[in-house]
């Protein structure tokens, strides 16, 4: 037998079918966008409601599947996140009308909404379903079509979630192809689509390498960088409440949200109080030995230990060689002084919160500025009542959201504050991103402004704008929406391959998902 036969490798080279299919999905999305851009507000809201309902119904099932597929996070918390991206997200934006023309008679300006068209969206492995839900909802509300490209480690659950939402949308009159998901994503595929002139905008949530690639693609992109949130606990804070916030935030989905606190800093005079409060809130506060072990386990010479991402505190404690109470919710290594070089001050997408104490507020602020630079443009938290210090802190740190007296994970992402609920946290200019706020549907619509001369007569009230959105529903599709492709087993990425892919991406991003 020939060498080729024994190796059983294909004798002919075969075109990348998945890439070809992804291009076709983009073409299909363009068709959907063409019709959907004219939908009326009522039709849009009906689709959004149907999608929210469908998403809510399967939130728990997909949460379970996501944890099973990726090994990241907590089913119960993922369920909450998924649900937040359904009715809650929709309710938040319910009154934001991105469909109806706006008429400003005083300024003699009419604004007509123009959706982007085809949105190409990347979704991370850490929040796969929530991101699919969230980005699909943004597309629906802004009358865009969306093609999602999940992280390879979460492709099965992401595709299933996207398909589920697409069916609900189509059943409510949305054009076929409005919500699609790449079923077998790969780096070359994502690069090809990102560079395609057939897409209108990229929503890049993922590793730094991917986000930078999105910005380099030549297409408009809304990409965001990693975080490294610092929480400052002022002596004026109610220490038990602050500790509960920190523990709740770090334990939430095992800290896979990029908004989770990485470091807690307080003043030396307050440190003892803080440790006690953290303990009673369910934290294991480490002694010097435990802190050393944790540091050694989490940071190897290759960088952050990816095994620890999204794992529970007790799981990590066991691996790191710490003896902890089984009910421990988070681990708190203690670094006596706020130096810049300790590895434990870097981003940790796991329930480990580094505690340190400064001599005075000025030193704490200087430390916070430097530490948040590793997650520039992202988030920070402030606990206390001293508003002068709050302003000084917010003015000083290079982030675009400071969460006050609330858990940062949920607060910066808009679930425990009145910020817009979001899984794409704009890191702004400081974080080399085009938006500094939480991504919302308004970022996917631009407006044509009809502006009359200042001194010329303009009877705006009499202008008929009904033609702008026809409101016509789609005719019944002659053929039902496509069935999911059956994946051949051989095409599935093996566990090793999967690990390698994650490693590759995470290594380059030095910390995590935004």
């Amino acid at each position: 037998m020939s060498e080729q036969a024994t190796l059983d490798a294909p004798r002919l080279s075969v075109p990348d079918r998945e890439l070809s299919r992804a291009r076709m999905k983009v073409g299909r999305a363009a068709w959907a966008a063409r019709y959907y851009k004219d939908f009326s507000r009522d039709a849009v809201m009906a689709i959004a409601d149907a999608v929210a309902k469908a998403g809510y119904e399967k939130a728990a099932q997909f949460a379970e599947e996501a944890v099973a597929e990726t090994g990241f996070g907590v089913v119960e918390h993922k369920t909450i996140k998924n649900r937040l991206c359904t009715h809650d997200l929709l309710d938040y934006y319910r009154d934001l009308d991105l469909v109806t023309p706006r008429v400003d008679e005083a300024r003699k300006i009419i604004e007509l909404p123009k959706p982007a068209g085809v949105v190409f969206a990347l979704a991370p492995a850490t929040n796969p379903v929530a991101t699919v839900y969230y980005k699909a909802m943004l597309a629906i509300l802004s009358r865009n079509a969306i093609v999602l490209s999940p992280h390879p480690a979460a492709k099965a659950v992401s595709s299933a979630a996207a398909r589920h939402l697409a069916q609900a949308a189509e059943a409510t009159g949305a054009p076929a192809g409005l919500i699609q998901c790449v079923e077998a994503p790969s780096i070359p595929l994502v690069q090809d689509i990102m560079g395609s002139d057939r897409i209108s905008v990229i929503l890049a949530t993922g590793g730094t390498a991917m986000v930078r690639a999105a910005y380099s693609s030549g297409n408009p992109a809304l990409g965001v960088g990693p975080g490294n949130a610092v929480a400052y606990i002022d002596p004026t804070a109610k220490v038990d409440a602050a500790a509960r916030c920190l523990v709740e935030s770090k334990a939430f989905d095992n800290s896979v949200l990029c908004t989770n606190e990485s470091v807690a800093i307080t003043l030396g005079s307050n440190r003892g109080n803080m440790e006690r409060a953290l303990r009673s809130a369910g934290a294991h506060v480490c002694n010097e030995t435990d802190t050393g072990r944790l540091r050694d386990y989490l940071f190897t010479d290759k960088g952050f230990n990816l095994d620890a991402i999204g794992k529970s505190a007790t799981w990590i404690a066991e691996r790191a060689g710490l003896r902890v109470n089984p009910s421990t919710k988070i681990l708190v290594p203690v670094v006596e002084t706020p130096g810049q070089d300790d590895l434990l001050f870097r981003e940790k997408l796991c329930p480990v919160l580094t505690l340190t104490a400064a001599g005075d507020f000025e030193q704490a602020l200087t430390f916070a500025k430097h530490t948040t630079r590793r997650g520039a443009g992202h988030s920070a938290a402030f606990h206390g009542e001293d508003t002068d210090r709050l302003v000084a802190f917010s003015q000083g740190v290079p982030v675009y959201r400071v969460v006050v007296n609330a858990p940062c994970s949920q607060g910066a992402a808009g679930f425990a504050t009145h910020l817009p609920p979001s899984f794409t946290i704009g890191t702004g200019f400081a974080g080399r991103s085009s938006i500094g706020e939480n991504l919302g549907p308004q970022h996917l619509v631009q407006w044509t402004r009809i502006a009359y001369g200042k001194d010329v007569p303009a009877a705006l009230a009499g202008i008929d704008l009904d033609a702008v959105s026809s409101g016509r529903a789609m005719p019944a599709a002659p053929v039902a929406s496509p069935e999911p492709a059956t994946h051949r087993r051989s095409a599935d990425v093996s566990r090793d391959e999967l690990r390698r892919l994650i490693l590759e991406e995470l290594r380059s991003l030095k910390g995590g998902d935004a």
Partner: protein
Amino acid sequence: MFNYGYFSFESKDDLLKKAAEYWNPGKVSFWKEAGTPMVIDRREGYFLYDMSGKRLIDLHLNGGTYNFGHRHPELVEVLKSGLDYFDMGNHWFPSVARAAFAEKLVATAPHMKYAIFGAGGAEAVEIALKTARYATKRRKIVSIIKGYHGHSGLSVAAGDERFSKIFLSEMPDDFIQVPFNDIDALEAVLSKRDVAGFIIETIPATYGFPMPEDGYLRACQDLCRKYGTKFIADEVQTGLMRTGVMWGWQGYGLTPDMFVCGKGLGGGIYPISACLTTEECGAWLIEDGAAHISTSGGAELGCLVGHHVIEMLQRPEVVSNVNFVAEFFARGMAEMIERHSDIFVGVRQRGVVLGLEFDHPEGAVAVSRALYENGVWAIFSSLDKRVLQFKPGVVLDVDTCQEIMDRFDAAMPRARELLKTMRRAA
């Protein structure tokens, strides 16, 4: 200077002169007189570029040959990779590509048993007609008036005399033609129980895509069963998703005894055709497998491309795209017919197969010219020049479709002007 490395021409005129001198003077002068003197130079996607540099959107597609557009990158990659391993192959022997492709084709039509390959549509028709004769031991073949099945011996005899008479190739004793959509006429012929096969294009293309009336094709098939005649669907222009389903007959709920396909089966880059038969009809393949021989029929490179063409057509994204394109032109043409009802009088459509009727015996010739001048290439129906064949591809994108409609609209005043001149001359 048009230097192609292997040969070169001074200019487009130089080429036209040589083409008339050495190749086909009739065709060269015909297109010149028609006002559409196209010599296709570059081609890419659904775009053709005349030697003058003029760009045309292709809605002719040679009857679906360029279903996926010209030189679709994925198909080009398949053929190139095939050339690293295969050639045409030896038609005498079993081959991996032929077996795989035959299996793939048969799987698209489960009541069929064998796929027999040819190099072009006419050869596939030839195989079907011979097979019908073998299976029934009868000689006569019935087809419709103004049907079109190719240009070889039996296939040309089954078609309109426009193409057979000049070569003294009509065979009126064995080849009988009945009017389309006339079930009684068909029964009158079949009831003599001496007809081997009835062959019909599922939607007759060269006749201008007149739509079969409700139940007509089904009734034809029933009559064939009743009188022991084999029912043969010619799917050369209606197959390969062009009517929204893989084969046109599937959309009419038929189960033909045989069907033939070609054109787009080779992706526009390697010629191949096929005749699919039931087990009963194909029994000669057991009795004498070498009874039909074709050196280039079922060439392995063509099988490889065809195999991939079928796989691509089955993708849910393509199925959905066909629906979008069909829906788009249904809406667009309804609008156009309203705006230009003085000359544009009817639309025949099934999927991405469209025939546009104009109010003049040679109306489509004028419209074809007007469209050509406006950057769109669509051809009139040879056997009904009132009707323009309008054949969008299955993976056309939304922007190109919109451009086609815009260009169509822009071409109508010119078409109106040309028709006026034609009426005056008449």
